[in-house]
């Protein structure tokens, strides 16, 4: 982009004539490092300590600061040009204090402090989530009890944003995941001559786990982050306070529609993802094992029953609840500048994905114990 400029870079010469030292050229921030090295050597070799500045063509404030330091070391500055006097006087007149240093902290103490701070924030985060769940639940129940307070238009917009607009990407992901499972299934089961069981493998894993998990993680990344960013920007621009001062509850206006919207869409998206996952399985098994769609359907019916579909779908509203809660909570936690919006968004996404996976693990144990 940048071509060579015609502005020449400045030069500075240190002239030594017997005992006399003189500077000629420009003493500015670009020539300062060289000048310092040069002068130090020259000054060390001489007894008389004076520096002539008559031929100095330009001087800037770092240069003047350097001259001030020389003067303080006992070097006499002679022949200062008229136009440099003001600057030199200004810099010499400044009451300079060194920059304070942040007290250094030992590495091991930093680790301990970090650990303690981390534990403290984790604890406060947990408390915050619990408190926020209470507030959001009460606001939601309130809205459901008094439907005239419910912002149906907002809810439907959230359903469109988080649900309908997410269909293409979620469908594609579900197909891809079932392709992966089917390929792995065929490869691993073939040595045992059990590659026909690939259909069972795909159907069970998609319906019970993969469909809902992939959907929840995608929605957490797509909509949970959007919740944090939208609400966070509103918070940073005082829009939340504007709502409050006009007698509107931000919980009611912003959190409840998002929560209800996601509670509606995530189960539906999960079902869609299950269907697309099974479709992907059908395509892959037909390509790899030459199982016709009719055979495939027959096989799926044999392999899974309603409880498998139920086990997958029942998790969706729970995930939706936590994605919406964490997303909105971090949005409302934005403080001050726009910079913290990005920070909170990252934290919200990490936390929701973490929560989704932990909850999924807990569900697995629960359903195993229940014998589902």
């Amino acid at each position, binding site marked *: 982009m940048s071509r060579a400029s015609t502005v020449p870079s400045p030069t500075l010469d240190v002239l030594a004539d017997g005992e006399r030292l003189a500077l000629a050229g420009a003493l500015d*921030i670009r020539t300062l490092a060289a000048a310092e090295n040069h002068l130090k050597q020259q000054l060390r070799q001489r007894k008389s300590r004076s520096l002539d500045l008559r031929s100095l063509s330009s001087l*800037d*404030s*770092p240069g003047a*600061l350097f001259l001030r330091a020389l003067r303080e070391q006992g070097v006499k500055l002679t022949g200062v040009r008229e136009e440099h006097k003001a*600057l030199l006087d200004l810099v010499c007149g400044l009451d*300079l*204090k060194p*920059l304070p240093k942040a007290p250094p902290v030992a590495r091991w103490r930093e680790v301990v402090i970090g650990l303690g701070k981390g534990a403290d924030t984790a604890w406060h985060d947990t408390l915050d989530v619990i408190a926020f769940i209470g507030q959001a639940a009460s606001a939601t129940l309130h809205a459901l009890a008094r439907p005239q307070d419910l912002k149906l238009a907002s809810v439907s917009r959230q359903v469109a944003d988080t649900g309908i607009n997410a269909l293409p990407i979620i469908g594609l992901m579900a197909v891809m995941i079932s392709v992966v499972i089917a390929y792995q299934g065929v490869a691993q089961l073939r040595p045992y001559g059990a590659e026909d069981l690939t259909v069972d493998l795909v159907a069970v894993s998609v319906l019970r786990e993969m469909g809902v998990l992939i959907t929840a993680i995608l929605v957490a990344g797509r909509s949970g982050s959007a919740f944090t960013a939208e609400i966070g920007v509103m918070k940073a621009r005082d829009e939340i306070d504007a709502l409050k001062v006009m007698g509107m509850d931000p919980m009611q206006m912003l959190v409840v529609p998002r929560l209800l919207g996601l509670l509606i869409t995530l189960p539906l998206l999960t079902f869609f993802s299950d269907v697309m996952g099974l479709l992907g399985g059908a395509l892959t098994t037909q390509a790899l094992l030459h199982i016709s769609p009719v055979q495939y359907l027959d096989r799926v019916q044999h392999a899974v029953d309603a409880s498998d579909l139920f086990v997958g779908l029942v998790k969706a509203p729970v995930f939706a609840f936590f994605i919406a809660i964490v997303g909105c909570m971090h949005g409302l936690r934005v403080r001050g500048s726009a910079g913290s919006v990005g920070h909170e968004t990252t934290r919200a996404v990490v936390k929701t994905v973490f929560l989704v996976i932990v909850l999924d693990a807990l569900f697995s144990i629960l359903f195993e114990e229940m014998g589902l």
Partner: protein
Amino acid sequence: MTAAVPRQPILSARGIVNRFGRQELHDGIDLEVLPGEILGIAGGSGSGKSVLLKTLAGLHRPNGGEVRIQGTPVERIDNAAKAVLLGVLFQQGALFSSLSVAQNIMLPMRHHTRLPVPQQERIAAMKLELTGLPAESGIKFPFQLSGGMVKRAAFARALALDPRILFLDEPTSDLDPLTASGIDALILQLNRSLGITIVIVTHDLTTLFTVCRRVAVLADRNITVDRMDRLMKSGHPWIHEFLHGPRGKAARLGALSARRQSHGTG
């Protein structure tokens, strides 16, 4: 336009045209900035003051015309030369939020010079002192500063490499009157002692009356450049309204007394 000045302009803009879609902001603007002067750029909201400033600083490529700084087209000046030639004080300060104030000031030095760190720190401390910030503010982060301190810190960073031209975008906006007067005084002091050429975009009438020797008024997509006292007599309706409105009068009186205080004479 102005009294004949024999000096070469340090910055000259010829025939600047800026368009956004159908909206034409500038229609062939000519502007010359003389070395060592303080030039104000005034105009109503939406008249394209900030766009003009960005054009002059080479941050925005105009749809037509050319900006030359010391005779070189601004887009052909390489980065290192630009850094020591131009400084910009952005309206919101634009301090890097992940760096402390001192690190903000030292960043261009670290990038463009080979000075040892202790010396960079001494220079940064000097810039803080020059702009009227205590040395302790050097280790603070931008979010810990008040509005006036942000402006001063941004000033210090814009001055990091002692640029020849300093562009100030609304240096006194969002500041209380006392702090704003402090900034005005700082502008005058830097101009006088460091000999920096300063271009100020502002609609703060007090700043225009107090510190600017010449003012360029943007109105009707064109520009009128003149000394303040002559602009006062201008027949252009917007300029007349701008300078003779109630705020104009108050600012003029305030500026007179401010100048008397800072100069001794008016």
